[in-house]
């Protein structure tokens, strides 16, 4: 039985006003996780002691009239690749279990806790974030809360499922090629991947530094806005952290959106998906009164280039372990990492050059439009263990193809939000709202408008 609050915003308001105590919320959350996690398999570690201590501090602040923070008393979880002080960062692996505990929290956790949010644990993922399914050979699969015979998606599957099942109102994940957006779509929650470098990755175990982003999962747009506000800011400890000033003009949310030029991505993004996916995009476009479509050229090559960069950087990161103890990797990632270690340098360099070229093409498109709509995944959640799927008469592998529509976008660091599309008697899907770099506010305005039209 999940707890009875709509989202983090409502819960924080109740705690801030003293209507309920943070301690009671955390106790109930921990009990709920204890009861339901054996079936849901979202959490791989629980930080009960720390959470209860922090809840007490929040309640003390409320009692004496001090500001307990924007997210006061709101429980959250993080993908288990984020450093949590006192706990070993396993990153979905067995190998990293041997590492010493982290000495301090990841920057993103620190910022959330400073805003009053309370960390209750770490969440399941594909080993080393290299996958789209969260079927982890060491820690088990995280089944989809909508249908336990299906996957949650990945690699941040535990993060998406925990929010979908309302174990916690929000979580953090990471996205290299779609690892926030794919599971958010399959689990029916919001998944925001801001611009590359916008949120600090300090203390997050990377997969491919050229492409890695931190992102968040929620059940509401207003929660996303709060998280984005809290998590932004330059971090000198992350070499790709942007020095651009944080976005703060959130008062425009709820305003008219007619100033935003919107188009639907066609070509590559209109192919290779099921009819229900196409219908979901068309419904969102109709709600926004969008008639324009636009092609992003060479997106299939962008996906290919992202694949090469990820394979090379991931393999290089784990090379020593691949040489010395390959038997300890998850078989689902080991063989791909090993193959990635053998890629000729020119393929990698060319993929990086292509990234620059593709960025220029997309920059030109964003002279004509402000927002692009595209599907998040090509289909609803596949079955656990399913290896192939057939879409538009073509049989294809599940694992690489779930990221077909997400990979070309994170490749050039664009901010993207996957919004949930939930219809009765149907598994959830997602639609990506895509903007030019650093234009997250435009995305949030569209999402806010759609939520008000009951598209969520």
């Amino acid at each position, binding site marked *: 039985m999940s707890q009875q609050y709509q989202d983090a915003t409502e819960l924080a308001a109740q705690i801030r006003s003293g209507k309920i105590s943070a301690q009671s919320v955390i106790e109930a959350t921990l009990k709920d996780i204890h009861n339901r996690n054996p079936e849901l398999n979202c959490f791989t570690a629980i930080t009960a002691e720390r959470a209860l201590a922090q809840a007490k501090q929040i309640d003390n602040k409320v009692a004496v009239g001090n500001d307990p923070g924007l997210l006061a008393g709101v429980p959250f979880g993080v993908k288990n690749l984020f450093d949590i002080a006192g706990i070993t960062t396993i990153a979905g692996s067995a190998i990293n279990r041997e590492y010493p505990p982290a000495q301090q929290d990841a920057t993103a956790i620190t910022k959330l806790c400073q805003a009053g949010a309370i960390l209750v644990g770490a969440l399941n993922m594909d080993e080393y974030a290299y996958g789209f399914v969260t079927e982890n050979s060491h820690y088990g699969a995280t089944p989809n809360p909508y249908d336990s015979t299906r996957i949650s998606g990945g690699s941040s599957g535990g993060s998406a499922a925990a929010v979908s099942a309302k174990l916690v109102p929000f979580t953090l994940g990471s996205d290299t090629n779609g690892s926030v957006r794919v599971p958010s779509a399959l689990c029916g929650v919001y998944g925001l991947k801001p611009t590359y470098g916008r949120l600090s990755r300090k203390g997050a175990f990377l997969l491919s530094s050229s492409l890695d982003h931190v992102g968040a999962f929620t059940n509401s747009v207003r929660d996303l806005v709060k998280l984005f506000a809290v998590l932004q800011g330059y971090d000198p400890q992350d070499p*790709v952290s942007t020095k651009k000033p944080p976005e703060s003009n959130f008062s425009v949310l709820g305003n008219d959106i007619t100033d935003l030029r919107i188009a639907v991505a066609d070509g590559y993004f209109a192919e290779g998906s099921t009819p229900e996916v196409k219908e979901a995009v068309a419904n969102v476009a109709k709600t926004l009164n969008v008639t324009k479509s636009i092609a992003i050229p060479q997106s299939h*090559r962008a996906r290919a280039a992202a694949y090469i960069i990820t394979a090379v950087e991931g393999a290089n990161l784990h090379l020593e372990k691949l040489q010395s103890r390959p038997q300890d990797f998850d078989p689902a990632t080991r063989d791909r990492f090993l193959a990635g270690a053998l890629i000729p340098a020119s393929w990698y360099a060319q993929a990086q*050059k292509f*990234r620059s070229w593709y960025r220029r093409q997309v920059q030109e498109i964003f002279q004509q439009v402000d927002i692009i709509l595209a599907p998040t995944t090509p289909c609803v959640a596949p079955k656990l263990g399913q290896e192939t799927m057939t879409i538009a008469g073509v049989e294809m592998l599940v694992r690489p193809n779930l990221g077909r529509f997400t990979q070309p976008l994170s490749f050039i660091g664009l901010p993207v939000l996957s919004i949930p599309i939930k219809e009765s008697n149907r598994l959830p899907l997602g639609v990506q709202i895509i903007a030019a770099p650093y234009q997250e506010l435009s995305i949030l305005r569209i999402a806010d408008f759609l939520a008000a039209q009951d598209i969520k």
Partner: protein
Amino acid sequence: MEQPKPNWKEYVEQTAKLMNLDHTGEYLPEVTNNFVAIANIASLVMEFELPEDTEIAPIFEP
């Protein structure tokens, strides 16, 4: 004249030795399958003609 196709199995075996990964022989059939998939994917990048002045965009501050 059409270029002969590379022998990827041999490439994988030899490069694995070069990278000190040759003791992972039991995995080589699957690694070869994965590498063939990567080679097919890479061809999409390598066959595309980029302007000569296209540069990688690294972030490096000396």
